[in-house]
């Protein structure tokens, strides 16, 4: 904590122990010490604030806040109090209060550079650009230092960037910023590089490219020295904007061949071709390590000339020969495949096999052994061989093989994999094995076989080979990612948890690859793990906001003006992340499913979450898809790769699913508040309005849900298939086909009808009552159908084969979620019907004569309904118990593995281990689902009258 250096001030000496306690996390002692001090020195405001910090940190937010406000209203001007309050407000996530604090301080001490500067930073933290502009100027007037002036200018630029109206930016903010800088230029007051950078930013944003170019090339440009080639890069950018191609060309020449002072200008295709050919020849003659650039440039030029239909490409040579030449030079580098992959389209399909054969001639392999394979003698030869295998896959030559051919390929790749392990014997645990990629390719061919033939044995062997790979190369992230994906597809989430945590994902990765985890955790019934994985992601997103503000301020301090809009864009990109919105929503839904009406009522849960049905905080129109959908290596040919269209469809599907979920959540919040008896403080009038407002929210949300489900149906009709290694499909299709969405919607619809009954009463509502009873019955039918879709064996052994049906598990989760929703509605029904019933009984007591009157339909219907619900939940529990029993009874050890598949004993062991993991995971899911169902069954009991 700051401001402790001045030992001279007696107050500092008095406060020091409190600071120390706070720093050491001893908040209780800090509070005590502060109280002691305040007894002697009532006016030592800072002690109060420090006490408030202690209170805040021990969870006494309200007390802390009122104590802080006591001091704040005095408008303190001592450093200690101000800084302590700043810290406190930041911890309270109320940065706007810091601005108020310094506004007052600046008024009282108008000549303080420090307070003015704090005020500017406080505005920066909350993004008040206009006030920043003024504060910067006020600061400059107090202390005429250049940086302050330019803080003000930058704040104008920020106003331009954040302006909704681009015209306002172009005609007001930016021109004003430009004039402010020009004034300093005229007065020859420009001092720092940052100021020139900012000037450039303004001119560029104004589209004044000529002026920007002149400025960069002129004396001001001489200040641009920190970044390498800063001036050149800026000139190049402007040349391109101005389409000054000759200048562009000459500058590129100079930059590319650094030794040349002045480059000749190439204006024709022929010259460009000659230039590239010359570079290759130079590179050929060189003794030192050859560079890839010239050779790749040649392929790139062919590619571009073809796009334009230019005949000059022939001058550059035959792409096939050029690629062979490239392979000859760089085939032993791991990046060779990445380099060549993007130019393979230059080869006509009929050349593919020839290309593969000729590449093979360039790979030095040893004598062919008994198994029919020759092996590389060193890692360079291994890398070359590997590159040919990869190229052959990218060319689609592996995909055209028949099943037999693919199995042979697997045998060959496995042999190479095992042989290559000897080169990595001395590798550290953290290093990859040289032959790891063979193993990964084996897995890919197994996946091909599995998806083509549906033979699940292929999948089990695939898991085995990957587990084996991981045992030799425990740091290989690609092994882990693919294992993770396969286990998820198999519906086995338990092994995924460890795999993901061993990936050691950090910060942004929670956003880019978190989807791999969160898509499956909840949907497979592993609720505890789901909760944990949502938390990983949420923790990161929540810290982002605070972190970025801090560094925006630093960027001002260090004059890194270009970084300020970048940091803000970064923060926005994270805040608008699809994944963020998903985990936010799923986290709350999960909490409701697992806790509401079990540990606390639905209403309490909703309130604790701060959920408001009217509020929608998801940026539907600006959603950012930050998922890294190509994180898994793929060597699939172009026609099997992930396309832009896939990305678009996946985002569309995920967004609609998110909409369904977020509407469900808001509907549940709405339902919870319906049950809430109007508080007595409100007048009768607002009472009435309150209730009708709530039901109209429910109505609006229901019709939105209805519309969304219609869109959803259209989307699922498309039955989009993504590449296996691409994005997983969302839960949308199975949610619709299981019937759970519609069942939940009708349950929520029912709550609206019940609300109507509440106002109408039992008399004169026979139609309404019948309607409600019909809904009761229909819900039972729907739940019964949903449950019947869960029936079947999730894992079974047939003819010595192990078969899985993970979709049963997913449907069971939908069933459980739907049961939760229906039971909440049932609980609401009870809350509506109970008072109606007791008032009926009162009436009955009065009119003893009419005691023969039959019970109203809706009451008997409700009793019947809860009975049926009880029945369904019991059935479901029996099903879960049955599944658990048959899973436990499955003796996987009895399976004979490896027959006819050339699997070694060791490989079989890994396959078996994978099978065990799947079995255990299924059991885990069933247990969690069973537990939740049992708790729900208990809550049903309280619904009886």
């Amino acid at each position: 904590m700051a401001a402790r250096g001045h030992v001279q001030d007696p107050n500092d000496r008095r406060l020091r122990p409190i600071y120390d306690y706070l720093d050491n996390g001893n908040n209780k002692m800090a509070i005590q010490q502060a109280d002691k001090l305040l007894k002697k020195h009532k006016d030592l405001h800072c002690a109060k604030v420090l006490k408030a910090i202690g209170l805040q940190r021990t969870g006494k937010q309200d007390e802390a806040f009122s104590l802080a406000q006591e001091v704040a209203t005095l408008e303190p001007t001592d450093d200690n109090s101000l800084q302590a309050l700043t810290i406190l407000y930041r911890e309270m996530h109320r940065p706007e209060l810091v601005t108020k604090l310094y506004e007052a301080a600046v008024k009282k001490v108008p000549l303080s550079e420090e307070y003015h500067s704090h005020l500017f930073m406080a505005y920066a933290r909350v993004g008040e650009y206009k006030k920043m502009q003024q504060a910067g100027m006020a600061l400059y007037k107090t202390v005429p230092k250049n940086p302050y002036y330019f803080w003000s200018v930058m704040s104008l630029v920020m106003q331009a960037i954040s302006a909704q109206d681009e015209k306002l930016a172009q005609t007001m903010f930016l021109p004003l910023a430009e004039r402010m800088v020009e004034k300093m230029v005229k007065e020859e007051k420009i001092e720092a590089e940052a100021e020139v950078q900012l000037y450039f930013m303004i001119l560029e944003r104004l589209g004044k490219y000529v002026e920007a170019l002149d400025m960069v090339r002129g004396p001001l440009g001489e200040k641009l020295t920190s970044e390498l080639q800063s001036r050149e890069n800026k000139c190049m950018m402007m040349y391109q904007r101005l389409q000054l191609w000759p200048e562009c060309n000459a500058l590129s020449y100079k930059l590319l061949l650094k030794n040349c002072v002045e480059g000749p200008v190439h204006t024709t295709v022929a010259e460009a071709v000659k230039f590239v050919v010359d570079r290759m020849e130079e590179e050929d003659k060189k003794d030192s390590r050859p560079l890839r650039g010239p050779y790749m440039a040649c392929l790139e030029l062919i590619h571009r000339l073809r796009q334009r239909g230019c005949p000059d490409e022939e001058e550059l040579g035959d792409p096939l020969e050029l690629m062979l030449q490239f392979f000859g030079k760089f085939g032993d580098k791991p990046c060779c495949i990445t380099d060549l992959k993007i130019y393979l389209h230059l080869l006509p399909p009929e050349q593919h096999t020839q290309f593969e054969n000729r590449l093979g001639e360039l790979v030095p392999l040893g004598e062919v052994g008994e198994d029919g394979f020759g092996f590389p003698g060193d890692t360079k030869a291994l890398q070359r061989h590997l590159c040919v295998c990869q190229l052959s896959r990218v060319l689609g030559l592996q995909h055209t093989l028949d099943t037999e051919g693919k199995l042979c390929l697997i045998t060959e790749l496995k042999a190479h994999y095992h042989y290559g392990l000897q080169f990595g014997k001395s590798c550290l645990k953290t290093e990859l094995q040289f032959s790891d990629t063979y193993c990964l390719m084996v897995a890919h061919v197994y996946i091909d076989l599995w998806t083509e033939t549906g033979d699940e044995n292929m999948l089990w062997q695939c898991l085995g080979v990957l587990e084996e790979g991981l045992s030799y190369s425990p740091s290989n992230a690609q092994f882990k990612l693919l294992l993770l994906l396969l286990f998820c597809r198999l519906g086995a989430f338990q092994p995924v948890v460890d795999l993901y945590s061993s990936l050691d994902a950090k910060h942004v990765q929670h956003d880019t690859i978190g989807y791999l985890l969160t898509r499956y955790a909840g949907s497979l019934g592993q609720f505890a793990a789901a909760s944990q994985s949502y938390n990983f992601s949420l923790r990161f997103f929540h810290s982002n906001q605070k972190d970025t503000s801090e560094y925006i301020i630093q960027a001002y301090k260090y004059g890194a003006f270009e970084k300020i809009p970048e940091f803000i864009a970064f923060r926005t990109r994270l805040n608008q992340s699809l994944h963020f919105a998903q985990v936010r929503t799923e986290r709350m839904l999960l909490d409701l499913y697992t806790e509401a009406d079990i540990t606390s009522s639905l209403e309490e849960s909703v309130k604790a979450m701060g959920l408001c049905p009217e509020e929608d905080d998801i940026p539907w129109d600006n959603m950012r898809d930050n998922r890294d959908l190509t994180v898994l290596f793929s060597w699939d040919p172009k026609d099997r790769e992930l396309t832009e269209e896939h990305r678009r469809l996946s985002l569309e599907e995920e967004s609609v699913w998110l909409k369904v979920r977020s509407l469900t959540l808001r509907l549940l919040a709405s339902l919870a508040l319906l049950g809430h008896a109007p508080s007595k403080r409100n007048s009768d009038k607002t009472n009435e309005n309150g209730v009708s407002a709530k039901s109209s929210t429910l109505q609006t949300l229901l019709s939105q849900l209805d519309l969304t489900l219609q869109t959803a149906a259209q989307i699922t009709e498309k039955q989009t298939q993504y590449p296996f290694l691409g994005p997983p499909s969302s839960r949308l299709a199975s949610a619709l086909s299981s019937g759970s969405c519609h069942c939940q919607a009708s349950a929520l619809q029912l709550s609206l009808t019940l609300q109507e009954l509440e106002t109408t009463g039992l008399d004169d509502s026979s139609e309404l009552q019948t309607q409600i009873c019909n809904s009761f019955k229909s819900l039972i039918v729907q739940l019964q159908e949903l449950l019947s879709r869960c029936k079947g064996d999730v894992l079974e052994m047939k003819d010595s084969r192990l078969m899985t049906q993970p979709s049963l598990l997913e449907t069971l989760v939908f069933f459980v979620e739907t049961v939760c929703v229906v039971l909440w509605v049932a609980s609401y029904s009870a809350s509506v019907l109970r008072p109606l019933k007791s008032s009926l009984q009162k009436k009955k007591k009065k009119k003893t004569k009419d005691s023969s009157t039959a019970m109203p339909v809706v009451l008997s219907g409700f009793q019947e309904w809860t009975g049926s619900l009880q029945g369904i939940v019991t059935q479901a529990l029996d099903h879960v118990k049955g599944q658990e029993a048959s899973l436990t009874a499955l003796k996987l050890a009895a399976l004979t593995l490896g027959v006819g598949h050339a699997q070694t004993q060791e490989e079989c062991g890994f396959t078996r281990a994978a099978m065990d993991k799947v079995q255990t995971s299924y059991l885990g899911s069933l247990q969690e689902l069973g537990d939740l169902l049992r708790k729900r069954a208990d809550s049903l009991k309280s619904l009886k009258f």
Partner: protein
Amino acid sequence: MTTLRAFTCDDLFKFNNIQAFLNFLSQYGIPFYLQYLAHWPEYFIVAEAPGGELMGYIMGKAEGSVAREEWHGHVTALSVAPEFRRLGLAAKLMEMLEEISERKGGFFVDLFVRVSNQVAVNMYKQLGYSVYRTVIEYYSASNGEPDEDAYDMRKALSRDTERKSIIPIPHPVRPEDIE
């Protein structure tokens, strides 16, 4: 064919192939990257392949007292994705960092490396760095690995004409004794 350019925040989203999945042993959080971007943006350079893949990056800073002739460039992180190794990329990135440090008038460039990381130590030696001193238990224990010592390696820049800055200190030092 490699593009060398300033690192931007958006690159963090493309980090998957270089950063974590490499057992890159340092645990950097977002604030760490942002701090470098805000303070020393010129020292944060990324290499990009023609297909858009990130090949590697270097991150550094300038620090130390000019008066005591300790003003220098520091290599905070240098990382190259496995598939783009053995292309001389690390050397190129180091060269750039040295050039920036030259321009800033630094006396030397320094870096810390695990004593066990023989590959890296040798690479830095090839690039003209020498061990200046050993820092005891500079790397704190993680993932079951014990604490580990670091070499503080240095290379003199042209401003240090007598190459005083790289004269080795014979006795190892503790982390708290270095700046």
